[in-house]
């Protein structure tokens, strides 16, 4: 129990939906969601596959705790080979969709092939069918969700879909669900679009059962008693991830103007204080409340209303209602990274990312790269559809968000992502990327552990594959970072495979999670067994990437971080010391000096 024991296989080429049993032996070794999805992908797809070809597969995967009452137990993942990265991708999302899929009786959906015409998948418990989506193609996520509910007359349908970005091949397109939740990273939405799959709508009424109901509820209560009163939880509830804005700036790790700087002079205009301050224009604050994903007792999600007098929304009433508000990663990318100190412009850009399914981190960081190209003269108004793109231009941010979402003009170039954009215009060094994926909101020079985590992340630059924050904020030197990063990468891989949210484990230890997992499902789950699963998952992903053609050379950071010292803040004068950390990291992982897992390591992990 806890797993439903069932997979839905959808052959988009043939238009068929078939049920098959979940491989329970693999479930014991890879748990679920990220891990188990990756195992299926690695078994069924050649790592050398073109991510946008019909031969690539895309897996929607839940974990054993998805759909249960474990706090934050509503996570699900999209696992595929990433369009943006050409590496294995696992994009994790919250909202309600994943739990609903589980309620319908499915652990996973495996999509293969490519539909000849646009389709969407409709699931009602056991019953699944592909339906024509021509009438949905070209429409935004915000239009698609109500349209499908209207079509089926079912207000309870939960929907995951792509917007126009996924259709038009924006390389960092997301799979969106529940209006503003996203499987955001690595271009999984572009993969979905390449398959002519517009949406998945699901209604589940079968429920999720656990192995030891009484013991499970006790474990949940114990874990809640630890999580709920904690200051970390309270901060997330009150400020959301936006609390990080001031912290990152103080620590000199706030990527600013395409990582030319590490602190932002306009930070006061894009932080929590501004978001909660009553506006002079309409007497209301940008932030109107918070919301939780399925089963979450944290509720870090922001709900905002944009300033109706802001230039970005004039004549656009659809943006005036409540919508998903700024999270730190979006705010950093549109704000400091692009140098824009206008909270309402950031909010608008965020809405567009949600509405048409674009990863705000990649979009914002690509805009920052374009601004640097523009400022250095590598591109001009001729290339930019006539737009002026200086750092700090809110008008440019807003215009580029619109163009990119629609796939028009210079928006097509922005949709390439920073790496391809900068290569196209002859300055690959302006792309703040690892393995083709844009930086999140932490500068590696003042967070050495995060730098190593970016460089070694199997899905490209990412702040969600390890948790080096507390260590990095305590120590800015690179010593022992390999140890910290390796250990937390393994833990996070297990957490991401379980069905819960990374954020709960800012309070919970792996033991706290294991006790809930063990009561939920068979297998004698302990923190130790979870770590072993995590290391296995990590190494499986690594092996996939090596077979895909990635090498040690891809475990690196942009030159700017390795050579140009931080200009201010606590780490002033420092660069990212990857050369010191990486060999140590490989050794700890049981990999060769070239970053290849040894046979002993593979055997130890039963890979």
């Amino acid at each position: 129990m806890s797993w439903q024991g069932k997979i839905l296989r959808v052959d988009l080429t043939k238009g068929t939906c078939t049920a098959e049993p979940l491989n329970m032996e693999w479930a014991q070794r890879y748990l679920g969601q990220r891990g188990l999805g990756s195992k299926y992908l690695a078994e069924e797809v050649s790592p050398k596959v073109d991510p946008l070809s019909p031969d690539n597969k895309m897996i929607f995967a839940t974990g054993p705790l998805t759909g249960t009452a474990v706090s934050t137990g509503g996570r699900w993942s999209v696992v595929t080979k990433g369009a943006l990265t050409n590496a294995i991708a696992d994009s994790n999302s919250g909202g309600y969709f994943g739990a609903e899929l589980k309620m319908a009786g499915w652990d996973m959906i495996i999509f293969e092939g490519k539909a000849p015409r646009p389709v969407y998948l409709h699931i009602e418990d056991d019953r699944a069918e592909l339906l024509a989506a021509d009438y949905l193609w070209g429409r935004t996520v915000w239009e698609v969700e109500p349209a499908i509910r209207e079509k089926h007359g079912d207000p309870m349908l939960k929907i995951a879909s792509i917007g126009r970005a996924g259709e038009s091949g924006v390389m960092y397109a997301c799979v969106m669900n529940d209006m503003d939740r996203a499987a955001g990273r690595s271009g999984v939405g572009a993969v979905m679009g390449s398959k002519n799959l517009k949406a998945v709508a699901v209604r589940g009424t079968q429920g999720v059962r656990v192995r030891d109901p009484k013991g499970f509820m006790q474990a949940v209560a114990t874990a809640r008693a630890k999580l709920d009163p904690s200051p970390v939880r309270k901060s997330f509830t009150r400020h959301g991830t936006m609390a990080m804005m001031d912290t990152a700036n103080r620590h000199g790790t706030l990527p600013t103007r395409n990582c030319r700087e590490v602190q932002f002079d306009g930070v006061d205009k894009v932080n929590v204080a501004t978001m909660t301050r009553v506006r002079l224009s309409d007497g209301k604050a940008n932030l109107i409340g918070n919301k939780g994903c399925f089963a979450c007792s944290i509720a870090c999600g922001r709900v905002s209303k944009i300033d109706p007098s802001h230039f970005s929304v004039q004549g656009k009433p659809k943006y005036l209602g409540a919508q998903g508000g700024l999270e730190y990663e979006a705010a950093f990318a549109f704000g400091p990274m692009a140098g824009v100190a206008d909270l309402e412009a950031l909010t608008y850009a965020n809405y567009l990312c949600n509405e048409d399914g674009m990863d705000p981190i990649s979009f914002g960081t690509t805009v920052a790269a374009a601004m640097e190209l523009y400022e250095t003269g590598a591109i001009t108004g001729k290339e930019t559809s006539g737009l002026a793109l200086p750092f700090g231009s809110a008008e440019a941010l807003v215009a580029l968000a619109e163009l990119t979402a629609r796939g028009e003009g210079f928006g097509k170039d922005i949709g390439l992502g920073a790496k391809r954009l900068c290569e196209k215009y002859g300055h690959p060094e302006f792309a703040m990327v690892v393995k083709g994926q844009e930086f999140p909101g932490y500068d590696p020079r003042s967070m050495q552990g995060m730098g190593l985590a970016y460089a070694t992340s199997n899905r490209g630059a990412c702040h969600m594959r390890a948790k080096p924050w507390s260590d990095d904020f305590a120590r800015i030197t690179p010593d022992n970072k390999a140890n910290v990063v390796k250990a937390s990468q393994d833990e996070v891989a297990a957490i991401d495979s379980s069905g819960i949210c990374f954020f709960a484990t800012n309070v919970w230890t792996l033991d706290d999670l294991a006790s809930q997992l063990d009561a939920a499902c068979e297998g004698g789950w302990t923190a130790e067994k979870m770590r072993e699963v995590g290391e296995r998952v990590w190494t499986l992903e690594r092996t996939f990437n090596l077979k895909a053609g990635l090498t040690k050379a891809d475990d690196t950071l942009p030159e700017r971080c390795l050579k140009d010292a931080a200009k201010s803040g606590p780490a002033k004068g420092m660069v990212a010391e990857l050369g010191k950390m990486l060999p140590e990291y490989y050794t700890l992982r049981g990999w060769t000096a070239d970053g290849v897992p040894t046979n002993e390591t593979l055997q130890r992990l039963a890979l």
Partner: protein
Amino acid sequence: MKHVIVGGGPAGVTAAETLRKVEPTADITLIGGEAGPPYCRMAIPYYLAGNIAEQGTYFRHEGDHYARLGIRYLNDRVEAISATDGRIRLAGGVDLAYDRLLLATGSRPAMLPAPGLDTPGVYSCWTLDDARQIAARATAGAEVVLIGAGFVACIIMQALAHRGMKLTVVAGSSGRMVRSMMDETAGDLIMRWCREHGVSVLTGQRVAAIEDGPTVVLADGQALKANLVVVASGVRPNSEFAAAAGVTVEEGIVVDGYLKTSVEGIFAAGDVAQGLDFSTRTRSVHAIQPTATEHGRVAALNMAGRSVAYRGSLGMNVLDSLGLISSSFGQWQGVAGGEAAIHLDAARYRYMDLKFDGDRLIGVNSVGRTENLGALRGLIQKRVRLGAWKDRLMANPYRFMEALVAVTA
């Protein structure tokens, strides 16, 4: 004060209990026309299906319920009313005086205009005794011809199918099912569902006669041989003795806004009463359980001298046809100039038809949905101005529960 209540159905029982609450010392007599304690006709199909024992159909489950409340319960039938001297005479010879009389005599099956109804093996399914007799003969695999396809016929069909009987339904010349509660689209869905679930439904047919066997002979000469024939082709109010006593009777016994009849001291409630219709503001017979209990309560309060206005009953029904659940509320036929929000998914047997008058919901037909149905009653009964929610319901009529929550919470 002497209260006499004629009829042991939901209206009569509710009235007797309500009177006892408000008049602890009054003399209350409840007269039931059938043997045994008061039971609920609505529960008969569940008894027939074998889901409950006979006792499960009783209104109240404590054996001494009526005695404990000091309600005299008689098994008898009314022969005549003498309104001028405030007396009624019962078939068993008893003669009772009353100060206030409540007529809650319900209805009875309508006679089929065809010869042979007295043929052995032909039953109506109205009383508990009918159900006993049918149950004794309704063995699995036996062939049944059910004459009628209205609401009552459909719930009997459900019960007989549950017993594993082979069913043929003669739906009558209209060719429709449950036409008094559902529109044609809904009726067609229900009919298709029944056929897919093994029931033979004959449409466009009239029963010419029932012959020995029993055999149902149709107007076109077709003969349907069966083990059992059940006739369920409508009901009519038991109002004749009231008319004889000078009480005004139209479709049923006409009552005013306080459930009073045309004769001083005599009230009427339930299936026999033609009372105020919430939707149309005219008087009509609503032979449904909620109306019966509401009538019973309000009539009792007025009998006790409280002046309590009855604001009208809302026609509504819910039907389970072999697992397909349908419901109807209010003016599901709509009104002139009103809009409709319709969603149909015939393949999945789902249908929702909301009827509006301006931005108010006034009627509903629904098939294949059970969640939150009562909210539809709430929206209609409260005459909620839906405002912006009207447009949302036009786009997706299934959002009615959200609409209710939005306007009330």
